[in-house]
């Protein structure tokens, strides 16, 4: 009678913790030129059934951090440290064969380009069957039935026929649906979608996002949505993590981050989104400069060389001291990594007018001439 009690307590303890807890994750790649710090001290959590959006430019570490969750750096030269707990399991302490059993079953990944991510020489069905059978000891026939079911669920017409098609016979949107079907084959509790709609055209993008939302409700999975599309973030996610140079620069509830961003990099991301209903003469506002070198990151705040607001920080703080990720002016649920003393007022006075197209369109023209 005493034996079951600890095991009965354990799930309760786990339930208190979010499904995914990433703490101080570092992924460093040793190269002949030095250490490339692709991810440098990243922490976040994802609750069951919730969606986290990870946003940032190419090379900001968004994909690398999620590949670490999948344990895809096993057997490479990458040095991964920190902790990743998925459903209470410390992922980083697992060896390759234990990790392999987790991949595709507990946590699946959907990739950016569905054409190159599916094997060109095997049928879509065979690839889903393979994903299912590697974790379930079932006959080929049963697995095939499951594949047809899944294809039906993700909205492939005539799934019993299309299951025998090769990836090149599918359209782009159907391929991504098939990828999603493959990702969901084993009912994973965690789904990582790495820019799942970037390679698709806009109408198909919306369909795929709708599908993911439906499936999330049905399967109760947690989703990490890696993207550089703030529209996707607004539409899909509960929380948002903005990454820059391998670190989180802003983290909080999506509604918070999008309405009251406190970090100039996030402002830059917001203002660089073109407004389709706006004046066509208004120039796009890109973030000047290019992403920082991960080999020799700039001293102080990694964003300071590109930051238009660094003059408003007293002293040489921006170029000497790296700011901590700490709570901003709006409460503990909103973290930012920035020295600016009063970001909210700058946002309201300077950035927000750029986002509302009516007022600044005239100003934009003035700048042009």
């Amino acid at each position, binding site marked *: 009678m005493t034996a079951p009690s600890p095991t009965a307590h354990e799930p309760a303890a786990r339930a208190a913790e979010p499904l995914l807890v990433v703490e101080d994750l570092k992924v460093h790649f040793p190269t002949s030129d030095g250490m490339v710090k692709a991810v440098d001290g990243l922490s976040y959590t994802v609750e069951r059934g919730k969606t986290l959006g990870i946003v940032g430019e190419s090379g900001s570490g968004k994909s690398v951090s999620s590949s670490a969750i999948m344990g895809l750096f096993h057997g490479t030269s990458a040095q991964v440290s920190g902790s990743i707990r998925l459903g209470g399991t410390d992922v980083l302490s697992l060896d390759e064969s234990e990790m392999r059993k987790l991949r595709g079953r507990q946590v699946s990944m959907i*990739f950016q380009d569905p054409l190159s991510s599916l094997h060109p020489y095997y049928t879509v069905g065979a690839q889903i069957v393979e*994903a299912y059978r590697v974790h379930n000891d079932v006959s080929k026939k049963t697995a095939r039935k499951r594949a047809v079911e899944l294809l039906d669920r993700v909205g492939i017409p005539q799934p019993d026929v299309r299951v025998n098609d090769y990836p090149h016979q599918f359209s782009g949107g159907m391929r991504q649906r098939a990828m999603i079907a493959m990702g969901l084959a084993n009912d994973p509790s965690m789904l990582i979608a790495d820019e799942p709609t970037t390679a698709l055209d806009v109408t198909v993008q919306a369909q795929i996002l709708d599908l993911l939302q439906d499936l999330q409700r049905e399967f109760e999975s947690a989703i990490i949505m890696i993207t550089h599309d703030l529209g996707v973030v607004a539409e899909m996610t509960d929380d948002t993590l903005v990454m820059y140079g391998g670190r989180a620069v802003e983290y909080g509830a999506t509604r918070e981050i999008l309405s009251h961003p406190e970090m100039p990099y996030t402002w830059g991301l917001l203002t660089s989104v073109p407004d389709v209903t706006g004046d066509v003469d208004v120039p796009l506002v890109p973030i000047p400069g290019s992403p920082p070198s991960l080999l020799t990151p700039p001293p102080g705040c990694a964003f300071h060389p590109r930051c238009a607001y660094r003059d408003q920080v007293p002293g040489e703080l921006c170029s000497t001291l790296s700011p901590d990720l700490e709570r901003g002016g709006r409460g503990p649920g909103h973290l930012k990594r920035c020295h600016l003393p009063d970001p909210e007022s700058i946002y309201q006075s300077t950035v927000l007018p750029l986002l509302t197209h009516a007022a600044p369109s005239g100003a934009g023209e003035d700048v042009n001439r």
Partner: protein
Amino acid sequence: MVAYTIRRILSGALLLVVMSMVVFVLFYASSDTPERYACGPKCSAQQLEVTKQALGYDEPITTQWAKFAKGVVVGREFPNDPDLRASAPELVQECDAPCLGFSTGYGTPVRELMTDAFPISFSLAIVAFAIWIIGGVSLGIVAALNKGSIIDRGIVGLSLLVFAFPTFFIGLLLLTFVAIRWGIVPLPEYSPIAEGGPFLWLQGLFLPALTLAVFYLAGYVRITRAFVLETGSEDYIRTARAKGLPQRTIIGKHTLRAVLTPLVTLSGLDLAGLLGGAIITESVFNFNGLGKLAVTSITRFDLPLTVGIVLLISTFVIVANIIVDLLYAVIDPRVRLG
């Protein structure tokens, strides 16, 4: 698929016809007195004239080619003279289809010389092919899977070293030490399967085939290694890993299937080239294959024989191309299903 096959075969046949024209024109145009080589250096002017007429060298080159082509299809007679055939049939040489003419050096039909030499070259090529494919591909995979390790560096370094040695050197080395000095194997000598059985056949071929294979093997190690590494960074391999597949499935199924395509192309064409004879290896080991025959025919200005061998080699290459393309369709559904 059937239409594609037929189209490929027809275009291959057309290519062969064009090839024969080019070769014919090139070789016969290069020498203004082909009858001199046919008749020999001591021929008198009168004999030369007779030879010229008997072999049809007095006719325009287009007529010569037409007769040659006709001979390939239905056979021909030398000299092509109905009167002579009626009066003295013993003076007329019959040449059955496919007739490639008579070798001026050997005095026998070109086809006969080639059918004698072909089994030797064919055996040599097949055994060498087996050695280099098995050895090269597996070493290449091993090197790729241990990329950067001592094993990888050893295999790559060694293959580079071997690749740098000329074939005749490796051949002489093997012949001198393995066969003569140490006597590990008897002196290589071609023994047809029909006569001595498969063991003697293989034993006789071993050293020359190894010589021939070593060069290709070194190349295939590096090619296979590169293909495996390149495929390893493909997105679909990452997908396979993300699915939780074990490493042996990822390599054995997903990677190798993709690596197969370029390897089939390369090896098909390499084998086709070798079927036409391995000149150096055959010369070193004194195997009377097509390669040696080709060298002899060229040094003796034996034009009909040279043309015959060149056409045979072109046929192999064209046929191999067609087979490789058809295999492509078998391997790659994107080709098959368009």
